[in-house]
């Protein structure tokens, strides 16, 4: 993992002391809330329905045990003993007092963490594949490039007041676990026939009111030209993105208005003028790459007796392995997904105790490496198969051994009306109702991969547009209604879901999902996922079944 050096640490210390001064001026009344708002937002501090929310950055979703323990400690001291992992792989504390925030930032800085650029119209946390460095699928380690972008984008003097927020995702595997095609910029690392590494650059995807799957504007950008090219894209956007309407200010609107070819040619022209001076020197790239050198893997046989014996003797462990353990590039190792979607729990929440359990397990059995996924789960990327039964038992005892990764109860949900001032409707209880309905694990496995994503308003923080089943909360004359969409995907086969029919009342949503699943099980052919069946049959059978009562 990348280690902060004295320069990185000084940046955080300076930030922390700057914010301490700003909070003191606010508390003394020298700054009004209006004047203070932009300053606190620069530090990830939002004022929500009931309290301040502090969003802590987890750059490219990567944590070490010390950092996770610190988050647990902050949750215990300053919040209600838990935190909420987000789709940007960050962590939110929802019950924060303003006066405590400078101390919290100092706590964070003590473990090389911060809340920089987790808010505001700037370049936000760059996300990447949670399996980076562990999966055999990748052509390069995407964290190298994510770290290069982290540094380049931090306090960028030209791009801190963009028309709107800006999100970048990087994947190096054909199976996209980052939703790259629905980001402002999606970068897909590829290897050319001659072995050279490059990025496919996708610009102008996004969700919100106007969802788009982003077009590719450059098929192959040589990797060492990344920063100059990003500078060109951001400069074109900074100059020409709309600033008259907050809902039309994302880069997707500019790309759609110009057309991808015209946008691409403006970027090319700017890029040519910028030149190589703006690229990172090879020496710095080598330094960063060194930090992500392969972990100290042992040479192990592909088969583990302890692992096979536990699977044979313990069905619950076998089920966990089927759903939560993914193949590792090294024989004798596995990638372990930790579900934060316990049945009846709030998606993405982890208690301080659970964070500490994960930190301990990572330290003892996982090469001290922890990842956060954009689907609001955690990953131990390097666990020996021999140790898997022990790791599983530890997770299970902490209430985070739910074997439901990619299954119907592995739901993304935004905080919704339970916390958020923008929401029209609750999202968390809808997720809980659905998870309860599919509590039967055999049935959930029979249904297979099914991604439900729930947003409490059109801003789409719950990614409903790209859910196989998407659920959007709307307000109808003061009552919560939910608009269902089908057939979305945020993966390599990205698409925006299409509307099922009229919005449903709160209490009908979980039943409607049940009906959709029954139609799928009836219609499915062979190994089709819900998404595949829907794409083959179209909406008609689903629509007929859900609205049958209405006729």
């Amino acid at each position, binding site marked *: 993992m990348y280690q902060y*050096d004295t*320069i*990185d640490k*000084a*940046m955080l210390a*300076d*930030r922390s*002391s*700057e914010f301490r001064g700003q909070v003191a001026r606010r508390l003394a009344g020298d700054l009004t809330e209006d004047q203070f708002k*932009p*300053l606190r937002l620069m530090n990830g501090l939002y004022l929500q329905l009931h309290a301040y929310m502090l969003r802590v950055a987890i750059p490219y979703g990567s944590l070490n045990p010390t950092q996770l323990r610190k988050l647990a400690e902050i949750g215990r001291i300053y919040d209600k003993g838990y935190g909420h992992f987000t789709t940007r792989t960050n962590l939110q504390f929802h019950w924060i007092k303003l006066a405590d925030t400078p101390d919290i930032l100092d706590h964070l800085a003590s473990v090389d963490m911060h809340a920089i650029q987790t808010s505001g*119209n700037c370049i936000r946390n760059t996300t990447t594949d949670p399996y980076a460095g562990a999966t055999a699928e990748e052509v390069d380690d995407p964290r190298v490039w994510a770290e290069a972008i982290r*540094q*380049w984008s*931090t*306090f*960028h*003097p*030209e*791009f*801190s*007041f*963009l028309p709107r927020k800006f999100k970048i995702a990087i994947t190096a595997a054909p199976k996209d676990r980052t939703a790259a095609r629905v980001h402002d910029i999606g970068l897909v690392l590829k290897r050319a026939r001659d072995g050279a590494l490059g990025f496919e650059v996708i610009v102008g995807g996004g969700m919100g009111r106007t969802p788009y799957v982003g077009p590719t504007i450059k098929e192959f950008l040589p990797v060492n030209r990344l920063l100059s090219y990003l500078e060109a894209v951001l*400069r074109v956007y*900074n*100059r020409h993105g709309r*600033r008259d309407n907050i809902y039309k200010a994302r880069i997707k609107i500019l790309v759609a208005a110009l057309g991808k070819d015209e946008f691409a040619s403006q970027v090319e022209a700017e890029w040519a*003028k910028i030149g190589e*001076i*703006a690229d*990172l*020197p090879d*020496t*710095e790239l080598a*330094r960063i790459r060194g930090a992500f050198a392969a972990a100290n893997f042992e040479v192990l046989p592909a088969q583990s007796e302890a692992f096979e014996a536990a699977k044979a003797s313990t069905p619950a462990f076998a089920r966990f392995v089927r759903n939560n353990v993914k193949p590792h590039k090294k024989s004798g190792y596995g990638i372990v997904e930790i579900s934060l979607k316990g049945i009846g729990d709030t998606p993405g929440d982890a208690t301080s105790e659970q964070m500490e359990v994960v930190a301990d397990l990572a330290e003892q059995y996982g090469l001290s490496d922890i990842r956060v996924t954009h689907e609001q789960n955690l990953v131990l990327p390097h666990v020996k198969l021999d140790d898997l039964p022990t790791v599983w038992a530890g997770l299970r005892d902490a209430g985070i051994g739910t074997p439901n990764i990619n299954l119907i109860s592995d739901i993304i949900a935004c905080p919704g009306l339970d916390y958020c001032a923008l929401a029209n409707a609750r999202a968390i209880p809808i997720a809980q109702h659905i998870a309860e309905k599919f509590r039967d694990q055999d049935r959930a496995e029979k249904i297979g991969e099914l991604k439900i994503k729930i947003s409490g308003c059109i801003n789409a923080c719950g990614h409903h547009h790209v859910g196989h089943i998407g659920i959007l909360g709307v307000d109808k004359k003061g009552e919560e209604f939910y608009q269902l969409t089908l057939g979305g995907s945020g993966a390599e086969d990205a698409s925006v879901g299409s509307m099922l029919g009229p919005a449903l009342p709160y209490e009908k949503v979980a039943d409607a999902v049940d009906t959709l699943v029954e139609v799928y099980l009836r219609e499915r052919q062979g190994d089709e996922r819900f998404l595949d069946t829907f794409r083959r049959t179209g909406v008609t059978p689903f629509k007929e079944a859900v609205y049958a009562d209405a006729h």
Partner: protein
Amino acid sequence: MPTLIELKDGVCRGVQDSFTHVADDEALPKGDVIISLTRFQAEGDALLSEGRRVGVKLEAEEEVEALAYDLPKLAVVGLVALNFPKYRDGRAYTNARVLRERFKFTGQVRAMGDVLREQAGFMVRVGFDAFEPADDASANEWQAATRRYRHVYQRSADGRAPAFAEREG
């Protein structure tokens, strides 16, 4: 006369501003003036030939490329003022940086409009060297705001060595 903060050799000083802002529909006073791009394109040469100094104010949506031909002149007998209609409107940062890095403009680049000390660090980094603060910041406060960070991560127009260059020693 409103206070102007000038940055020279790393030091911020409050100075008397010799320039007067003149709107398009206002009569021109004597002395140094800052006028719009439109007015400059119509009257700039005539005004300069009178021996006075002329600054050009660019709105956020106007691009410095429009001034390319006039910049050598303005560097000697004028300035470029970039307007921030709101502090959140970041287009002037690009204009300033392009002025310095692409056109090698050596004259004054002045920040005007919604110019706040919290943004002072960013402004200095992209090449602004004169400021009309909207928040009554003093030169000392402005200076402090530009020095909050000991290091920077990226190259910009201020010539500061980014972290990767510092690391190479």
